[in-house]
């Protein structure tokens, strides 16, 4: 299915990542957003509040992030595509509803424009330190999908992807931006609506007696959806539930249900994961990065190559599910990997886990507030290449 032309601002624009993400959401079909102001993400909903009444959409500013993050879930069950946007402290407050969205298999998108933490931290300055929180921050076992744009163009493109994946797998999907990508202004090309692929919601066509809200379908292992007012009389609960959605708090149902919530993503990880690789073939060292850090790392890689080092790059566009298969295959072929990220060691744990000791893994951490000095990454490359 293609995008609804009503929401698509086809053409070349000069806009920042926050605005581009908003346009991506609209192009993907989002017609509801709830938000609570928080720097540096607020521009996304500011733009949405401006656009909404002109495209048949609704924006509501809620009383806090707890409210915003569940209002969107209510809206989804009301039959629309919905998203919310936040940063740091707000993201922490939203954790409960990430779990609820996972448990109730409610397709939705969260945009997190990462800033320095912990706590109030650095409201106006960048970090990439919510990368583990997005995966593990809500209690219990679960899998989600998280994407990391490194430019305003990708903020647009990947937000559409996020909506599409959320509908495909009935799972919350996260656009993990950072303050720099959110506030950097670049050219953003918005294609015409008929060039934008949009995943529709998979509403069931089954009759009322046979439809089960949580009966998995297809290799996505994902059930079909419905919305209120169709007469399906669905029951949606955050309690452990059976295929009908009825609470059933037994170890057997827990095993069946939670396992499926996890395997529907893990089993499809190779299809979901996107990475960008450059000169990895024959490289001694591969520099792994994502988001804004990938652009800084590029500078370090060029410097290293100028010194004659054989360096490849691997950019995580999908951070979660973690592209394990790629790292497992790559590790035995290289001397080492250098993982640069604006935190003190998060995704590098995944890289090390998948490298299984078959190559060196060096972390180039940074507490945030600004981007890396490329020299620091270069030093790590030289060290690992030695």
């Amino acid at each position: 299915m293609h995008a609804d032309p009503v929401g698509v601002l086809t053409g070349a624009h000069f806009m920042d990542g926050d605005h581009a993400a908003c346009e991506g959401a609209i192009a993907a079909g989002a017609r509801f957003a709830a938000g609570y102001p928080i720097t540096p993400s607020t521009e996304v909903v500011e733009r949405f509040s401006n656009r909404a009444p002109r495209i048949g959409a609704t924006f509501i500013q809620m009383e806090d992030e707890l409210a915003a993050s569940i209002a969107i879930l209510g809206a989804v069950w009301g039959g629309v595509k919905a998203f919310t946007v936040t940063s740091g402290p707000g993201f922490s407050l939203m954790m409960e509803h990430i779990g609820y969205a996972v448990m109730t298999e409610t397709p939705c998108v969260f945009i997190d424009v990462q800033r320095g933490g912990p706590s109030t931290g650095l409201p106006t300055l960048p970090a990439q330190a919510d990368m583990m929180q997005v995966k593990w921050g809500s209690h219990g076992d679960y899998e989600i999908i998280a994407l990391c744009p490194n430019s305003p163009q990708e903020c647009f493109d990947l937000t559409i992807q996020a909506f599409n994946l959320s509908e495909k797998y009935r799972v919350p999907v996260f656009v993990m931006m950072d303050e720099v990508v959110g506030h950097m202004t670049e050219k953003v090309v918005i294609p015409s609506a008929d060039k934008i692929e949009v995943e529709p919601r998979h509403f069931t066509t089954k009759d009322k007696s046979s439809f089960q809200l949580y009966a998995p379908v297809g290799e996505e292992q994902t059930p079909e959806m419905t919305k209120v007012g169709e007469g399906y009389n669905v029951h949606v609960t955050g309690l452990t539930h059976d295929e009908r959605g009825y609470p059933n708090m037994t170890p057997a149902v827990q095993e069946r249900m939670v396992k499926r919530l996890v395997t529907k993503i893990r089993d499809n990880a190779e299809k979901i994961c996107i990475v960008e690789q450059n000169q990895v073939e024959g490289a001694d060292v591969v520099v792994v990065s994502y988001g804004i850090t990938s652009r800084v790392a590029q500078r370090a890689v060029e410097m290293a190559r100028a010194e004659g080092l054989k360096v490849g790059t691997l950019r995580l566009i999908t951070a979660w599910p973690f592209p394990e298969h790629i790292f497992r295959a790559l590790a035995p072929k290289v001397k080492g990997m250098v993982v640069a990220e604006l935190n003190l060691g998060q995704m590098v744990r995944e890289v090390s886990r998948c490298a299984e000791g078959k190559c060196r893994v060096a972390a180039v951490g940074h507490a945030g507030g600004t981007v890396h000095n490329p020299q620091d990454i270069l030093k790590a490359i030289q060290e690992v290449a030695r």
Partner: protein
Amino acid sequence: MSTTTTPDCKVHPGNPVESFLRTDRMPHIWCPGCGIGTTVNCFTRALIDSKQDLNKLAIVSGIGCTGRVAGYVNLDSFHTTHGRAIPFATGLKLASPETTVVVYSGDGDLFAIGGNHLIHAARRNMDIKVICVNNLTYAMTGGQTAPTTPEDVITATAPYGTYDPAFNLPYLVEAAGAVYVARWTTFHVKQLARSMQEMFAKKGFGFIEVVSPCPTLYQRRNKMGDALDTMKFYKEVSKTKHGAPTSEVGLTKSGEIVVGKFVDRERPDFTTHMHEHLQHSLGDKYIPAEGPVCG
């Protein structure tokens, strides 16, 4: 013989509540004499009498004993997170404006952890109907002090009696902006059903408090007898005072319970107001959201 006992039969077809129940989930988990089931009877009668299109009705609960109502009624029903039934309902209502959205939850859920959401939804005059079963305690977790527990009541977390002042719910909700506010007890089944019907018919944020026994944890711990004693107590101490100033209807442990309809006023609801405002500001450029649009 005018008594039909149906020992094996799971349902009795004539009972209006029956068609509203997920009978495959009966019996419910509520204790003997718990008032929540009684409120469900009133709810179903109100739905029948108000001729609601039940396909256009959704019920949203939070967490707690009352939070389980959503799981037992055969309607589109959402059992959400603790305290967040109202913001969920807000999103649902905005996305599906033709749906009547009822929030059915307990006092702890709505007024402690969910208190912020409640006052803001009332402020916005969001068109949702809140039924608050007030058993004066946190029942699901074992009878701890709630923000509704009256003075000098023994709870699991106030073994020497409560001294933490309680909310007067109708007063709070009126001040926050609700257009319909009433209180009944589970003794007042007819009045409660009528009041619910009235609230469903009124656009805007409606609120009904139902004072309800929790014999297992509240009454027993306070030597106030069993559920039936509590119902008799409600009958004895309740005074119907329609239009009573809500500032004067606070509950005490054993004093008078003022019941009745306290507030019934006019104010544009959120969506109506939003449409009017945006129409005025944007003119022809305004494209109102028209409910579910999800390719």
